[in-house]
């Protein structure tokens, strides 16, 4: 019997069955509550620090031979390799390296990227061929998601938030043997940055973590610049073992997609307006406030409302956080915020801003969201506006499984910022493609409902009953507040009631780890 089948499970605090141990991985505790970890005692130092090296002065790090670089890294079957996903759907490094590893006859590798872009269907082939036997990621989409949901990997895939991944690395759950880090600009000693070069992608916040903790670090670049790289260095040379020069690390048109525009969809705009009204009613938009918002759907429209309000009331915020869009940089340049803290840049207009704006600051994923360090920025956040695929009556959020039960999303910083922010607003249409967004119970819990303060749709605002203070603010501001059960009934009158997808409950194909390393939920094979 292969791993993942008939595992002994226990019910966690959200009544989700989760395994107590995963063969080949580790023992697990069930999720208890967002900050239950504060009761724990941890005295062990962080694991996975970079190894010491003894190297002669001026030794040569550069090669253009992928296979030689791999040989020198000491990579063996069964080891763990990592990549970052800053090149988004334009990334060519993951396929290029996996292809070379397949040709070299490697097997049984653990793939531990910071996330997988939409475009990497070839990873599914690597899973089927046996090159990749374990996957640790923030998400799984497209063919990769379908392959996992069909049960093509024996060992359950571990899905983590961005903060949770850093915690896992520093606690030794992920031990990266070789990190292949795409470097849009790099010098011959491995100083690199993402904010220059034809494949520029902006922040290298996720890669910085891998560079610090991997046993062997290979910078992969198509843009070897004169030593020393200047004016910016995101990852310094002392962390980099080799510099691998390739023709291309990606397709610039897909790496730096045009600036995200504010939606014109009237439903999105209504959602944004409702979300903004709630944010304004909360009283948090004052001098020194901090704010995070995504780039899709209604998110940028919320940012636009916030900006107008700040202009009108002459409010200046302290920082914007997160995945950074051009719109946020505009707000920085127009003086609405003191600084932007950027772990990942979303569009072209952001890429060179870090060189231009001293207050556009690159932060690594640990600084962004790691719950087990000495303080992450997500915990300093006032307001975050998040998206969702589905939500349930307990406000639990699913950003990972589609209506058919198949993996198709990514967790990203969702649970990290929801837990850290004073006000976590989830904004989504009340139904999409004829299917209601509010479920009795979500397929996969990615963010626990107790960290979600409100769910905002075009049809009204649902406030988590535990936030009586927020409910009062919203009522006083005469906002369209609705009970989440009432809204669900209202929407189901239009759409009908969908059936839940059918799963093989004896076969766990993926596990959602909460940021503290406990298990939030199990994902099952789709029938």
């Amino acid at each position, binding site marked *: 019997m292969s791993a993942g089948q008939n595992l002994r499970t226990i019910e966690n605090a959200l009544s989700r069955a989760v395994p107590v141990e995963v063969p080949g991985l580790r023992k697990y505790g069930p999720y208890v509550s967002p900050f239950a970890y504060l009761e724990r005692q941890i005295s062990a130092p962080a694991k996975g620090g970079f190894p010491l090296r003894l190297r002669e002065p001026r030794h040569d790090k550069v090669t253009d031979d992928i296979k030689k670089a791999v040989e020198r890294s000491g990579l063996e079957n069964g080891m763990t390799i990592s990549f970052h996903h800053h090149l988004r759907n334009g990334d060519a490094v993951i396929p290029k390296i996996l292809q070379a590893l397949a040709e070299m006859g490697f097997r049984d590798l653990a793939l531990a990227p910071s996330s997988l872009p939409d475009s990497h269907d070839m990873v599914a082939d690597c899973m089927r061929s046996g090159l990749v036997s374990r996957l640790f990621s923030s998400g799984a989409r497209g063919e990769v998601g379908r392959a996992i949901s069909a049960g093509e990997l024996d060992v359950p895939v571990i899905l983590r938030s961005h903060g949770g991944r850093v915690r896992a690395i520093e606690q030794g759950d992920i031990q990266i043997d070789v990190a292949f880090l795409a470097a849009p600009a790099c010098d011959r000693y491995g100083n690199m940055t993402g904010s220059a070069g034809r494949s520029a992608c902006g922040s290298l916040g996720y890669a910085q973590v891998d560079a610090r903790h991997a046993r062997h670090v290979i910078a992969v670049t198509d843009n070897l610049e004169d030593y020393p790289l200047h004016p910016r260095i995101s990852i310094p040379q002392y962390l980099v073992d080799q510099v691998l020069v390739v023709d291309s690390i990606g397709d610039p048109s897909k790496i730096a997609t045009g600036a995200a525009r504010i939606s014109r969809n009237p439903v999105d705009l209504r959602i944004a307006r409702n979300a903004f009204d709630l944010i304004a009613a909360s009283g948090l938009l004052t001098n020194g406030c901090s704010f995070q918002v995504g780039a899709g759907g209604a998110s940028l429209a919320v940012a636009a409302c916030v900006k107008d309000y700040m202009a009108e009331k002459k409010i200046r915020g302290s920082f914007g956080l997160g995945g950074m869009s051009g719109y946020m940089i505009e707000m920085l340049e127009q003086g609405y915020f003191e600084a932007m803290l950027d772990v990942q840049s979303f569009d072209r207009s952001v890429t060179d801003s870090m060189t231009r704006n001293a207050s556009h600051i690159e932060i690594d994923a640990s600084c962004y969201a790691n719950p087990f360090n000495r303080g992450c920025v997500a915990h300093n956040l006032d307001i975050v506006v998040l998206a969702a695929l589905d939500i349930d009556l307990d406000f639990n959020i699913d950003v990972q499984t589609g*209506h058919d039960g198949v993996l198709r999303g990514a967790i990203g910083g969702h649970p990290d910022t929801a837990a850290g922010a004073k006000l976590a607003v989830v904004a989504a249409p009340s*139904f999409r*493609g004829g299917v209601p967004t509010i479920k009795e119970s979500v397929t996969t819990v990615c963010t626990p409902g107790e960290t979600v303060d409100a769910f905002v749709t075009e049809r009204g605002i649902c406030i988590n009953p535990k936030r009586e203070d927020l409910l009062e603010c919203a009522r006083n501001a005469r906002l369209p507040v609705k009970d989440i059960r009432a809204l669900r009934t209202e929407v189901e009158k239009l759409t009908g*009631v969908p059936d839940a997808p059918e799963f093989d409950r004896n076969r766990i194909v993926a596990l959602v780890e909460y940021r503290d390393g406990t298990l939030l939920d199990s994902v099952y094979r789709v029938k």
Partner: protein
Amino acid sequence: MLFKKAQAGTLESSDCMVVVSPAETCILEYSGQNETIFKRRTERIVREIAERYAPGASVQIQDRGALEVTLRARIETAFERASKEDLKEDPAGEPK
């Protein structure tokens, strides 16, 4: 009683295309992105409407994410057109 094949609806998103034709028994072909989660709902609605028109009918639905009210209206219209005796072919001015 159904006399001929008739259709209603479009393949635009949030709509559905319904084709109804005479048959011995009730047959439903339901396809689209929501085919698994809305199979039972759609069967129920088709049976409900079909009962008012004919004991047997072949119904094909391509669902592009239609709301239940839309689905219902399209199915009803298709049945209504299929049950018109006077016209040989369905003349309804649905966009092609």
